[in-house]
């Protein structure tokens, strides 16, 4: 299974980026093989607005089935849901630790967005 994790750096030991839309990187981790690819999010980092929506679309297009991150706003949530991606907010520590937390069932999937949208 492929899991996308928002990250502040491009490797598994980078801290999870608590921001979804304006995360520095998305790490796409294959949880069966442990292999990963890093995808920078520069375009959305500097976006005028709608960063969450566009980041969500990118995650869907990467083929992720779940996303581990800090906070997800309502618009990104709607978009991820439409793309049938399961959303696990409140991930913390490094990317490696977040994936472990998720694997051991310690992350709860969100039934709705966990943060308010904002204007940026």
């Amino acid at each position, binding site marked *: 299974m492929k899991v996308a994790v928002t990250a502040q750096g491009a490797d598994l030991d980078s801290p999870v980026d608590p921001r979804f839309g304006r995360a520095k990187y998305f790490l796409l981790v294959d949880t069966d093989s442990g292999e990963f690819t890093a995808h920078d999010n520069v375009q*959305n980092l500097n*976006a*005028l*607005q*709608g*960063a969450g*929506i*566009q980041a*969500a*679309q990118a995650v*869907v*297009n990467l083929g992720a089935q779940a996303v581990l991150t800090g906070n997800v706003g309502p*618009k990104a949530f*709607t*978009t*991820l849901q*439409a*793309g*049938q991606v399961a959303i696990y907010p409140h991930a913390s520590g490094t990317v490696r630790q977040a994936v472990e937390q998720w694997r051991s069932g310690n992350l709860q999937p969100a039934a709705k967005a966990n943060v308010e949208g904002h*204007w940026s």
Partner: protein
Amino acid sequence: MKIAIASGKGGTGKTTIATSLAHLAATDGRTVAYLDCDVEEPNGHLFLKPQILREEPINKLIPVVDADRCTHCGLCSQACRFGAIACVGQQTLIFTELCHSCGGCLLVCPQEAIREVPKPIGLLRIGTSGPLQFVEGVLNVGEAMSPPAIHAVKDAAPDVDLTILDCPPGTSCPVIESVRGCDHLLLVTEPTPFGLNDLKLAVEMARALKLRFGVAVNRANTGDREVWSYCRRQRIDILAEIPDDRAVAEAYSRGEIVVESVPQVAECIRSLLETLQSGAPA
């Protein structure tokens, strides 16, 4: 003639001066309209107490996708610079609050699957206050984009001899939308460091837009003299100096038109009106 009343800083007396000018001019027999362009916080009605004759929704155009025609190609999402469209799987999602109504998605769609529909973002209220024509826009609370509402207010302006536009404070997009196309811009300030700082920003804006402008100093007998030195150095005309008077503050707090309640201010405003209309200052 269109005169816009603006100020970098809020609370300098913009609405006091705008309502007073409009009221005085209208009672002088000219056809006059007052437009409240401060759609986020419209206040003119509190003083002019207009009789509202009709109300209309203010709309912005938003795209709607015809699901039968949409092939989920994603071109609309790529074209939208405002990040308002997402194509995920078999769905095209549109986040209308982010839409700037540019029409790019319609133009780019190869299937002609997108059309535009109006979405209400506020209310236009049109009426009269005695002989004065009155138009205001009221933006819905929670709606972030005011320029389309300001545009609607200006579009609804009646054809009259004199139009007074009461503008929002600041120097960013809503103010630009309000002052664009006016014949004369009056910048209201007060003689304090905050007032002067914000006046400088407003002057920069007026110059960038190449508008003819002058300054009115409110509460002129308080604060310091820096505003006068600045205007002299910059060769900016001071068109009015309105004294601070507790009677003005009290009349204002009660929602009265200041020229009605305080005669000495009425004289200031009358001479300001004449100066503005004579078109003398450059």
